[in-house]
């Protein structure tokens, strides 16, 4: 077992196998107005985002509502057509594929959504929900595969005949996971998969996702606003603010040594389940997230940044590598300590 882990570590640390590579991804939505749908303004939901996800890794994407994290996840899968930039999946350029080619690739890339009730068809039984992708892609032994999948996500044969409204939210989310796994994907986008669940059920689903990742060597893009959950599941993390990535690093780099003022504000805002920690959290929260329709000039965080100076209003900072693998988008990154 130890030797196996050692080999695994070697393979991953040699940098073999980047599963997802996102380069300068952009997604702009036109905001239209009036009867003739005249376009008035672009909403830049994702604006020049680049990162990589390695084989078997969980990459967390965090940020507040409206930061563009869900749009990033969906654009990577081309559920939204990107406005610009490229996405590679194992060296296949996803953004250049035709519709037919994309359909052939779909089994390898799947997504799980936040609300398990609205992402399952209420008129299908659990069996048919999981069987649907198998039939669509012409698999044989549908019945055996469905039962295997049910077992893999901790459900049993008796659930197969039920409808989504007859089972709990946690069980629905397990069904959504089983369906996503049906075609043996390599890469899963998990879009707030536990946000609609109670904490005790959330823990069950998080542990399930962790176990399945090991068993099936899955690569996850884990989108969440809950930093506690991200710390639990992710290996590396990217912090988004108004469509931009402002910090990327390993979980330890970002959570224990946050470099961007926004990351610090975010981390010090999370209520910690420990009353003794009350006094320690000092970073003050200034203002609210501005409308993404009219993002601030220069560094988009300058309106809320306690360290903002003249240059922050004028120039957008570049991504700087602070230490190996730890990237920060801030003019004064070295000076803030």
């Amino acid at each position, binding site marked *: 077992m130890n030797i196996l882990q050692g080999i695994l570590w070697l393979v991953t640390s040699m940098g073999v196998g980047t599963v997802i590579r996102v380069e300068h991804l952009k997604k702009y939505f036109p905001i239209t107005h009036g009867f003739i749908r005249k376009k008035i303004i672009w909403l830049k939901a994702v604006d020049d985002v680049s990162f990589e996800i390695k084989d078997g890794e969980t990459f967390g994407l965090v940020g*507040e*509502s409206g930061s563009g994290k869900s749009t990033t996840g969906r654009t990577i899968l081309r559920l939204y057509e990107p406005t610009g930039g490229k996405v590679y999946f194992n060296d296949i350029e996803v953004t250049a594929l035709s519709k037919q080619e994309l359909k052939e690739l779909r089994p390898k890339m799947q997504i799980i959504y936040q609300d398990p009730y609205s992402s399952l068809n209420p008129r299908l039984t659990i069996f048919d929900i999981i069987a649907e992708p198998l039939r669509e892609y012409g698999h044989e032994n549908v019945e055996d595969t469905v039962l295997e999948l049910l077992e893999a996500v901790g459900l049993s044969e008796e659930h197969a005949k039920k409808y989504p409204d007859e089972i*709990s939210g*946690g069980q629905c989310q397990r069904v959504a996971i089983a369906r996503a796994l049906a075609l043996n994907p390599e890469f899963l986008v998990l879009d707030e998969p536990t946000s609609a669940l*109670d*904490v*005790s*059920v*959330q*823990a*069950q689903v*998080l*542990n399930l996702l962790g176990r399945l990742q090991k068993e099936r060597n899955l690569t996850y893009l884990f989108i969440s*606003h*809950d*930093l*506690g*959950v*991200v*710390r*639990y599941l992710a290996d590396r993390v990217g912090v988004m603010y108004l469509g931009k990535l402002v910090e990327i690093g390993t*979980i330890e780099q970002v*959570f224990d040594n946050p470099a961007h003022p926004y990351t610090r*504000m*975010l*981390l*010090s*805002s*999370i*209520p*910690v*389940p*420990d*009353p*003794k*920690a*009350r006094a320690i959290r000092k970073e003050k*929260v200034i203002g*609210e*997230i501005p409308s993404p329709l009219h993002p601030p000039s220069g560094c988009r965080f300058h309106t809320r940044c306690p360290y903002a100076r003249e240059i922050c209003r004028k120039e957008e900072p570049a991504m700087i590598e602070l230490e190996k693998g730890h990237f920060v988008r801030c003019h004064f990154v070295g000076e803030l300590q």
Partner: protein
Amino acid sequence: MKKLLEIHDLYINFKTLWGVAKVLNGVSFDIKEGEIFGLVGETGCGKSVTALSILRLLPPNAEISGKILFKGKNLLEKSEEDMRKIRGKEISIIFQDPMTSLNPLFKVRDQMLDIIELHEGLSREEAEKHAEKLLKAVGLSDPERILNSYPHELSGGMRQRIMIAMALSSNPFLLIADEPTTALDVTIQKQILELILDLRNRYNFSVLLITHDLGVVAEVCDRVGVMYAGNIVEIAPTEELFENPLHPYTQGLLSVVPDPRTKKPLKPLKGSVPSLLNPPSGCRFHPRCIYAKDICKRAKPELHEHSPGHFVACHLYGGGNCD
């Protein structure tokens, strides 16, 4: 400190098409003057029903028994007319979703002034001055603009601040906050929690804070009650509860909260919350409890004081009806 609110043995049943849901199963706790009391639990444990029952805002299919003493008087015996004088004046409530709590068709001015005029008997002009003062007190620096806005022109955080300003407009003794920050982003949540703390320190009202988030509890509450399936299973000062949780459910709950400061393993409770149409006998937690004994299936454990100020309802800790 004097007790402001005392709830004794509150039972609430809802008659539904599918049977009788036994939603509260003998809930007792009290809130002292100037105290922030947290009520924490998972979906369907009865925390919101408890809050609504204090204001007698439950739907007509609810059957209530027990006592809710507010400043020594039983609210359940008050006439509807008396209750109208208490609601919004002596006891105020703010809800989770500030989007739906404000009427989208009226400017903030009309909604705020109506309430202030009604409760305080002020003229329009005096009410307007009072409203501006309140908006400043909740951290909205441009009250004139806010009063002239429609709710959709304001952010979620601003709307929740307005709700707080309205709730505090007549200096209530008790503020019930039902998941006040659940719909907000964490940075805004922090601002709102700090605001509630700050206002409590200034005006010394009591707060009943209802939440599912143990982090929020740790952040602002003085004392906490933990609810499970219609029962309060444990009450303790906040630090004591987190340091020395007694009830197996509280222990379980604390061990499944992901901590952003460190990666610790999560040990989920087995099973899920029972249906209240047909709740388990005895201790309602017994089917999920790793320590469950025979007596847990038979007898409901009563809340008793295990150490000073720390109450628990569990047969593991004795308490009268245990062997």
